[in-house]
């Protein structure tokens, strides 16, 4: 069974409000809040449309999605983790303050992984 990756540390990253993680079947393995539970469902449906859109565009395979408003930002991406038991990719969803960028988050998670 896929385990969540350092959920408390990710929740504590600057600017992060709510987070979720799912397995590769998009079944939740961690939700930080009720809002995160709702975002898992939204993300699953959104990924389906995004996958279809990427396929139609003929541009390649979908790597990640960022959704922005004036007040918040939602990032959905996958990571493969150096863990023989749970090497299957996880899907991460982070709802953040609007100033937070995807690169900041992936760099921070990368640092968390490296230091564990």
């Amino acid at each position, binding site marked *: 069974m896929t385990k969540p990756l350092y959920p408390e540390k990710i929740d504590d990253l600057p600017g992060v409000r709510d987070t979720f993680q799912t397995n*590769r*079947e*998009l*079944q939740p393995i961690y939700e930080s809040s009720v*809002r995160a539970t*709702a*975002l898992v469902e*939204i993300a*699953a*449906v*959104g*990924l*389906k*449309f*995004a*996958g*279809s*859109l*990427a*396929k*139609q*565009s*003929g*541009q*390649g*395979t*979908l*790597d*990640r*999605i*960022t*959704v*922005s*408003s*004036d*007040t*918040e930002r*939602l990032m*959905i*991406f*996958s*990571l*493969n*983790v*150096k*863990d*023989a038991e749970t*090497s299957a*990719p996880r*899907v991460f969803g982070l709802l953040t303050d609007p100033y937070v*960028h*995807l*690169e900041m988050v*992936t*760099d921070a*998670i*990368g640092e968390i992984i490296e230091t564990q």
Partner: protein
Amino acid sequence: MNPEQVTFYIMRLPGVAGCFIVDEEGIKKASHLPTDFREDVIFGMANDGLDLMETFRAEMPGCQEIRMDVEGVTILIRALMDHLLFVFIDESAELPTIRTGAKVCSKRYDPDGVEVAAMPGSMSEIIAKANYNLDS
């Protein structure tokens, strides 16, 4: 600024490979398209783009912009009053104002835990695995 003017100016930004605008009914209003884009592909993308925007608006009422990073390209979908703007941005472009960083920290490992390549986990692969669950 009308849709034709918007696409005219966006097409002149460095790294922009193409853009087009659709209205709420998915009808193409103006277009400067990446090569080989057929009408039916545009209509399909427009409809999926509208569905995508509406999906995220369900939980993010202020949703204005969706960026999809695919291999080598970012597809930017931006709400523009009663239109949706699609922009295709080349991965190599330095466009900090209209593009988030695409630096990749995710890595892949073989069953022994040895890193085999530094690359993003493919959402498409996951979506393919999950399609049954999403459809049921």
